[in-house]
């Protein structure tokens, strides 16, 4: 039986010839291409991460909600992205356990699964220094995903944990063989071994095929390409928890600061956007490593007064939370700021408060100051860089 091609399939061929007869600017006048195995972005949209040699930053100002598209998730690598064959990858759990065990990826997927939406943020997330900075420049080392995997407690139950164990070492299979020590309590609380990100397999940059997920803890501790966990009485004092991810606090150096402190940033309006007089919906994200966002306040008068912003529901624990505040701008130059309070009652501090609390040698880790955008009378928006004494 003769079969003529149908619909969109043949539309492609027809299009080439017929389109010439039509107004090229009117999409209603000629059929477009049909379905495909995998979609692509519109050619008019080109969101990108900003890569340096060791990291790349999420374009926060381009995102309208809180799940980061996987290909825009920030990166921080210490020896690049390993190529791992998932059929060969195994996770070893040993040390202070009743039975040291190895789990294949297939084994891990058979255990009861759970999905958790939370942010992962680099503990060094915060840059300042000039007015020409976008939210991506200032705070782009944070992203959010739907993570799916097995509760670490389920695996620890399977191997049996020795009563003497207090900590566990997690080790990656990248060329840095990255290690961090984590308190055992986190495993009984909410730690997971995850194999899926936004529904599909974790992306290579995020730890394919498995990573440790420690909701709310420093990004670096969420070991990627995880291959080994060792239960121990004491922390290992690895390079990443001593020489790195520690910071001067007056005359001491603080280490093992796990939770990411609550913070917020206005992503619209921000540099280099422009606004017009009248209604401007101020938008941004807020989050806390210690639980839910309780409230976000916005100031449109240089921090003199603060107004409650709307929080996008559902508000999840340890998760980027979108906030919005409707501002009726009178056209005068001003500064706009946001500050978050989390469910523990912690209010995001000013830079001045942080410097006062930690002293003049304050480092680049766990810096979560309130930040401001300057709105000029011409509607242009600029980052307000505030000096602090790190050098």
């Amino acid at each position, binding site marked *: 039986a003769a079969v003529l091609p149908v619909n969109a399939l043949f539309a492609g061929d027809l299009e080439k010839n017929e389109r010439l007869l039509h107004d090229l600017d009117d999409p209603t006048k000629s059929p477009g291409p049909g379905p495909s195995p995998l979609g692509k972005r519109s050619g008019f949209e080109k969101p990108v991460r900003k890569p340096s040699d060791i990291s790349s930053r999420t374009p926060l100002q381009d995102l309208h909600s809180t799940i980061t598209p996987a290909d825009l998730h920030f990166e921080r690598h210490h020896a690049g992205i390993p190529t791992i064959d998932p059929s060969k990858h195994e996770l070893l759990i040993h040390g202070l356990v009743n039975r040291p065990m190895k789990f294949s990826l297939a*084994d891990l997927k058979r255990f009861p699964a759970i999905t958790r939406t939370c942010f992962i943020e680099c503990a060094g997330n915060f840059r300042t220094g000039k007015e020409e900075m976008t939210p991506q420049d200032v705070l782009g080392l944070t992203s959010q995903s739907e993570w799916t995997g097995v509760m670490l407690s*389920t695996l620890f139950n399977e191997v049996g944990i020795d009563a003497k164990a207090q900590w566990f070492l997690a080790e990656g299979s990248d060329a840095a*063989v990255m*290690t961090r020590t984590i308190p055992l309590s986190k495993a009984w609380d909410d730690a997971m071994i995850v194999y899926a990100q936004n529904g599909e397999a974790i992306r290579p940059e995020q730890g394919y095929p498995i990573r440790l997920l420690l909701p709310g803890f420093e990004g670096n501790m969420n070991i990627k390409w995880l291959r*080994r966990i*060792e239960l121990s009485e*004491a922390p290992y004092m690895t390079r990443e928890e001593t020489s790195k991810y520690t910071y001067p606090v007056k005359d001491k150096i603080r280490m093992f600061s796990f939770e990411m402190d609550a913070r917020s940033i206005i992503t619209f309006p921000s540099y280099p956007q422009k606004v017009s007089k009248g209604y401007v919906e101020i938008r941004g994200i807020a989050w806390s490593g*210690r639980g839910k966002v309780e409230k976000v306040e916005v100031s449109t008068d240089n921090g003199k007064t603060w107004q409650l912003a709307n929080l996008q529901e559902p508000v999840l624990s340890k998760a980027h939370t979108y906030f919005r505040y409707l501002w009726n701008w009178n056209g005068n130059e001003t500064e706009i700021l946001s500050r978050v309070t989390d469910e523990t009652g912690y209010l995001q501090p000013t830079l001045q408060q942080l410097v006062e609390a930690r002293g003049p040698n304050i480092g680049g880790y766990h810096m979560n100051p309130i930040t401001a955008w300057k709105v000029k009378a011409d509607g242009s928006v600029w980052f307000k860089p505030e000096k602090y004494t790190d050098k």
Partner: protein
Amino acid sequence: SLTDTAKKAVKFGFGRTATPKEIASWDIDVRPDGKGLPAGKGDVKTGRIIYTTKCAVCHGANGTETPGVKLPGAALVGDTLAKARPKTIGNYWPYATTLFDYIRRSMPYNLPGSLTDNEVYGLTAYLLNANKIIKADVVLDAQNLPQIVMPARKLFIMDDRKGAPEIK
């Protein structure tokens, strides 16, 4: 939301027992108390030679910051004086065992995992000596390495924040 379908009492029986050989081949970590340090030894002199061959290209001839040159690797040697810049082994590393552990697992950057244990002892000895922490004649091994008290040790504290409203 974190309630999965697992009942604590259940053993699922997925996975298998890891063999001692499998564990040994991956168990490369070293703890401050010396747990995990392998047999072998190394001295400052041999360490310096290995450093020159395998490390200097990225960390500089002497491991110090070279004015006007941005090296691919961080400075490793500096003023062994608290709060001095740059932060290096002498003024910022609280445990000597970390140096052995880190070099063995991830250096040289381009060929991680390629050093013998003796080479790592040697490099550790060389870098500790260059930072004025041990004498030039020390031969490092599993016994004496954990005994070294690093100058920065006394500065380090576990997180002293209590959470909640406190800004600290």
